[in-house]
C-alpha cells in the first residue's frame, strides 16, 4: 500500500497543497502548485513563505497572491482564513487560498495552505463589483440634485416655510445624507474587493490622525452626550499609511463607539506600542456584542439589533483597509460591559536623513 501513502496522494492532488512550520517555512508543496508558481521544490523547501516572491519565476503573474500571503504570514494565525485572488497564468484565473493552523502530533505543528481553482466564483464577484460601482456612480447625480434642492428650500429660497414643512424637509435631508453615505460605502467596498482601492502611503503620526477623527465626531458625540478621551503612550513611532484611509478607519470605529454608548458615557482612544506595532484601541462603555454575533461583526450588512442608522458597512471597510495596510483588526467584548476594537499597523523607524 506504499503507493497510496499520504504524501504521494498529496503530491498528485489536483489542488495545490502546501505545509509550513510555525515560522511559515515551507515543509511541503504539491507538484501542481509548484507548476503553477513556476518553481521546483528544491528552491522552496525550508524557505520562509515571505521569501517566495524572490524565488518566483512568475512573480508579476501572481502579485495579488503574494500580497495575500504576505498579509497572512505577518502574524501568528489562530483560525482559518480564506481568500479568492486573481492570477494570470497567462489567462486570468482565480484561486481560492485557504490557510489554517494544524497540529499533526504533539510535537509537529504549523500551517496548512490549500489552493483551489475558483475562477467561476471570482468572475461572478468581479461582475458584481463592477455592477455596484456603475450603479453607485449613477445614483450619485440624482442624490446631489435632491440634496441641493432640499438645502435651498430649508435655506429660505422659497421664503419662510411653515414649521411642519421645515420638519418634513429636514427628515428628507437626513435620509438623503444617509443614502449618500451608503452609496459611498458601497463604492468603497466594491473598490476594495476588486483591488482598485489605491493607497497613498506616507509616514503618519497616528495620534494626529486620531485627533482629526475625534474632531470630526464632535457633533455626533455632543448629540449623544458622550465624551471622547485620548490615552496616548509615550513616544509613539510613525506608521506607513494612507492618511485619509487611516482617519476613515478610526472615524468608523469612533462612530460605532459613540452610537452604542450610554448617555454620559466615555469613549477612550488608546494608542500605544505593542510588539513593534502601533496599536489603536477604541473602547466604549456600551452594551457590548452578544457572543453569538461577535464572529460576524465584520461581515457586510451585519448590524446588531437596535443598530442606529449606520450603513452596515463601516466595519467591513475598516477591516479591509487595515488588511490592505498589512495590519490586523479584532474585537474584544464582554456582553453588557462594552467593547474594545483594536487594530495594529507595523511601526516604522525614525525618518532617515
Amino acid at each position, binding site marked *: 500500500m506504499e503507493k497510496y501513502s499520504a504524501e504521494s496522494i498529496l503530491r498528485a492532488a489536483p489542488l495545490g497543497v502546501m505545509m509550513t512550520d510555525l515560522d511559515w517555512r515551507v515543509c511541503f508543496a504539491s507538484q501542481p502548485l509548484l507548476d503553477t508558481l513556476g518553481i521546483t521544490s528544491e528552491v522552496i523547501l525550508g524557505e520562509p513563505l515571505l521569501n517566495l516572491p524572490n524565488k518566483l519565476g512568475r512573480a508579476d503573474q501572481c502579485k495579488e497572491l503574494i500580497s495575500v500571503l504576505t498579509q497572512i504570514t505577518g502574524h501568528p494565525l489562530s483560525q482559518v482564513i480564506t481568500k479568492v485572488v486573481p492570477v494570470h497564468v497567462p489567462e486570468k484565473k482565480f484561486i481560492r487560498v485557504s490557510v489554517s493552523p494544524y497540529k499533526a502530533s504533539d510535537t509537529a505543528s504549523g500551517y496548512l495552505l490549500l489552493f483551489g481553482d475558483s475562477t467561476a466564483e471570482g468572475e461572478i464577484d468581479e461582475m458584481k463589483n463592477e455592477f455596484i460601482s456603475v450603479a453607485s456612480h449613477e445614483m450619485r447625480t440624482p442624490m446631489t440634485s435632491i440634496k441641493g434642492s432640499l438645502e*435651498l428650500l430649508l435655506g429660505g429660497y422659497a421664503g419662510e416655510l411653515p414649521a411642519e414643512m421645515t420638519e418634513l424637509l429636514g427628515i428628507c435631508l437626513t435620509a438623503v445624507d444617509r443614502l449618500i453615505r451608503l452609496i459611498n460605502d458601497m463604492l468603497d467596498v466594491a473598490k476594495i474587493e476588486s483591488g482598485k482601492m489605491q493607497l497613498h502611503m506616507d509616514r503618519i503620526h497616528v495620534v494626529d490622525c486620531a485627533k482629526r477623527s475625534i474632531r470630526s465626531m464632535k457633533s455626533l458625540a455632543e448629540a449623544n452626550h458622550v465624551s471622547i478621551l485620548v490615552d496616548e503612550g509615550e513616544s509613539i513611532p510613525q506608521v506607513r499609511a494612507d492618511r485619509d484611509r487611516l482617519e476613515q478607519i478610526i472615524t468608523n470605529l469612533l462612530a460605532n463607539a459613540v452610537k452604542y454608548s450610554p448617555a454620559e458615557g466615555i469613549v477612550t482612544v488608546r494608542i500605544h506600542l505593542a510588539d513593534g506595532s502601533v496599536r489603536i484601541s477604541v473602547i466604549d462603555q456600551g452594551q457590548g456584542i452578544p457572543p453569538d454575533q461577535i464572529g460576524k461583526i465584520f461581515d457586510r450588512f451585519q448590524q446588531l439589533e437596535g443598530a442606529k442608522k449606520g450603513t452596515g458597512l463601516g466595519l467591513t471597510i475598516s477591516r479591509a483597509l487595515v488588511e490592505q495596510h498589512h495590519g490586523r483588526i479584532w474585537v474584544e467584548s464582554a456582553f453588557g460591559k462594552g467593547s474594545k476594537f483594536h487594530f495594529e499597523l507595523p511601526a516604522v523607524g525614525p525618518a532617515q536623513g
Partner: protein
Amino acid sequence: MPEIRKVLLVEDEEDIRKVAQISLQFRGNWAVAVAVNGEECLAMAASDPPDLILLDCMMPRMDGYEACRRLKQDPVLSHIPVIFLTAKTQESEIKKGLAVGAVGYLTKPFNPMNLVEDIMKVLEEHQKPD
C-alpha cells in the same frame, strides 16, 4: 480681486445645473449663463466673456479639462478664472485640473447655501502672494 457679476456655469446634468444656477443667483446675486459641454463653454465665453467659469470635469463632446486648456491658450479669455466642480476628490484629478490652469476646485455634492462663499474662498486663496 476682480469683482464677480457674471458667471458661466458649465454642467451637463440638467438638475445639478439648475440647483447650481439658483444657488449662484440666490446667494450671490450673480448673473448666470449656462452651457452643457466644453464646446458650448468656449463659444459662450468668446461671445460674452464672464468674470468666472464654473466647470464640470466629465462632460460629453468636450470635457472640462480640454475646455480649460483651450481657454488658457486664448489671449482674450485666458485671464478668466476657472474653478472645477467635480465629484472626484482623488488627488490625481485635482492635479489634472490645476495643471490645465484652473485656480481651484470644489467637490460635489456641494451645499448650494454655501457655494458662493466657497467660490470666494477659492478665489481669495488663489490671490494670496505665495
